[in-house]
């Protein structure tokens, strides 16, 4: 028997909950409580207080919003700010209690403040992806890139019907200025046709594998779903393990909705703690077409490329932090060359790719637009402090 029930027995009064239910007009014990109220002034006063209290609080004056509150909202939205709101109801009951949840939120804020702004990609491992993280086009995170100069027209229109399912293999090497060469990772890029929410889409799965500084394996994988016809990005998942010394695993999930990219980041610390961060950013209308890193070696398969062709695309970042949302990329055809890689010899268009102040040479096959080789146009600082050139080549398909 509960303590309140025992007290009820000992005092002869209904329990507090029974009185509350009576005020709420719930049928449980209603007759017994009503009978008690007839002869108990204290309980009648308690019930009367509850009812008067309810009436009184409903009559309390309501505050007025500040005159500039709506303008603040509209100004912030116009500047690209977005926010993920919680669902109307919690999705599932969590096991943790309120104070612990508050502690975790505080801990997350502290951790994120120390590592996300640095965007410490796992540079001791592989250069990972194609465009954004030091492979085909641009180097890793940092400040938002200025728009390419002079302004170029957007690449496209992209025709998704030109794509076909395929699997491509690449290897990356780093050559320093002394001529010393080292392995810098290998990638598999697979394109296949699937259905998403009942609609046919293209799915691109890219996995870079390399070595960490202590000879462990580093994996960075991205799966991207794009609209079948015009190749608009629809959703993306990124998995990085390890992310850095502090975080053994990081995952990013995104959905591209209208002019926004929404999603979440989840990182698992090597000491067991977890960090979660919502993603809600606006993608500028004039940035289209948007690509992600996984799609970079395939995108030119879907557009017409020819002599003196020059266009722009935008790489969508992880969008967890405001300076990692969009990366404008300029593409210019500068010639035609025959290129030999371990996968074969191909007639190619040679392009100059400019992004975030870095320039690369990039070769795509004339026949199908597939990227077969990329190389830094000039030596740059590597992750290990040396200066050199990174090169990615097609090794098989």
């Amino acid at each position, binding site marked *: 028997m509960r303590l309140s029930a025992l007290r009820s027995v000992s*005092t002869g*009064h209904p329990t*507090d*909950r029974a009185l*509350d239910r009576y005020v709420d007009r719930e049928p449980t014990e209603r007759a017994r409580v009503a009978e008690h109220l007839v002869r108990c002034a*204290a*309980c009648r*006063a*308690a019930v*009367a*207080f*509850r009812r*008067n*209290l*309810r009436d*009184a*609080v*409903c*009559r*309390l*004056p*309501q*505050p*007025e*919003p*500040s005159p500039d*509150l*709506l303008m*603040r*909202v*509209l100004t*912030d*939205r*116009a500047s690209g*700010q*977005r*926010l*993920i*709101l*919680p*669902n*109307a*109801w*919690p999705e599932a*009951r*969590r096991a943790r*209690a*309120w104070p612990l*949840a*508050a502690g975790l*939120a*505080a801990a997350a804020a502290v951790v994120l403040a120390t590592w996300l702004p640095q965007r410490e990609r796992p540079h001791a491992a592989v250069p990972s992806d194609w465009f954004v993280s030091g492979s085909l086009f641009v180097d890793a995170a940092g400040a938002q890139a200025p728009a390419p100069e002079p302004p170029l027209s957007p690449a496209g229109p992209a025709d998704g019907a030109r794509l076909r399912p395929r699997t491509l293999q690449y290897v990356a090497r780093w050559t320093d200025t002394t001529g010393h060469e080292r392995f810098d990772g290998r990638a598999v890029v697979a394109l296949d046709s699937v259905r998403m929410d009942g609609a046919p889409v293209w799915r691109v799965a890219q996995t870079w594998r390399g070595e960490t500084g202590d000879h462990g394996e580093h994996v960075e994988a991205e799966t991207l779903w794009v609209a079948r016809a015009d190749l608009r990005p629809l959703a993306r998942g990124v998995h990085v393990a390890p992310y850095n010394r502090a975080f053994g695993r990081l995952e990013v999930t995104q959905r591209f*909705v*209208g*002019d*926004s990219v*929404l999603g979440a980041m989840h990182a698992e610390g090597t000491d067991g703690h977890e960090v979660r961060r919502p993603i*809600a950013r606006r993608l500028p209308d004039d940035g289209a077409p948007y690509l992600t890193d996984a799609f970079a070696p395939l995108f030119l398969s879907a557009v017409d490329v020819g002599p003196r062709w020059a266009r722009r695309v935008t790489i969508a970042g992880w969008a967890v932090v405001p300076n990692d949302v969009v990366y404008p990329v300029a593409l210019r055809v500068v010639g035609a060359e025959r290129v030999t890689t371990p996968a074969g010899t191909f007639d190619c268009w040679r392009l100059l790719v400019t992004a975030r102040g870095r320039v690369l040479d990039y070769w795509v096959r004339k026949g199908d637009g597939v990227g077969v080789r990329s190389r830094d146009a000039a030596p740059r600082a590597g992750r290990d402090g040396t200066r050199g050139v990174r090169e990615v080549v097609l090794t098989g398909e």
Partner: protein
Amino acid sequence: MLASPPATPLSPDLIAHTRTGDPAALGELYAQHARALLALACRLTGSAADAEDVVHDVFLGLPEALRRYEERGSLASWLKRVTARVALNRLRARGRSREVALPPNAAHSADALDAVALQSAIDALPDALRAVFVLKEIEGYSHAEVAALLDITRGASEVRLHRAVAALRRALGGGDHR
């Protein structure tokens, strides 16, 4: 002065336009709902400044959030639940000590509660008790719904409501029951 929530159902076009981020549509929804949402946020947080931030955040994220709104219930109810959750998240993260002076323990009869004293007494409740009191007694949620919103059990919701009412009764000079 902002308009009261409309008695008639909202135009589907207004929701559709808001989903696209149309500022005019967002402003229209704001005009219809901001005042009620601010009142809810103010009661939950016990702070006008926090409440304005809550309403700001709700409308900042509303176009994207509306894409999850299935239009099965009233928009006003859906907005209130979302606002309550944003306010509760803010409360959890805030963790501040409350510095609200208790009203003088003057003789307020239960049927003539002074509005200022009552508001002060509600503001002086601990966050956990005030949240239950506001959601149950003012917003009309059931204990099961309050429990879901606060991530507590139904029994805990009932206990907290009773403690909140008892604290208010003491603060307002009604004495203790029994």
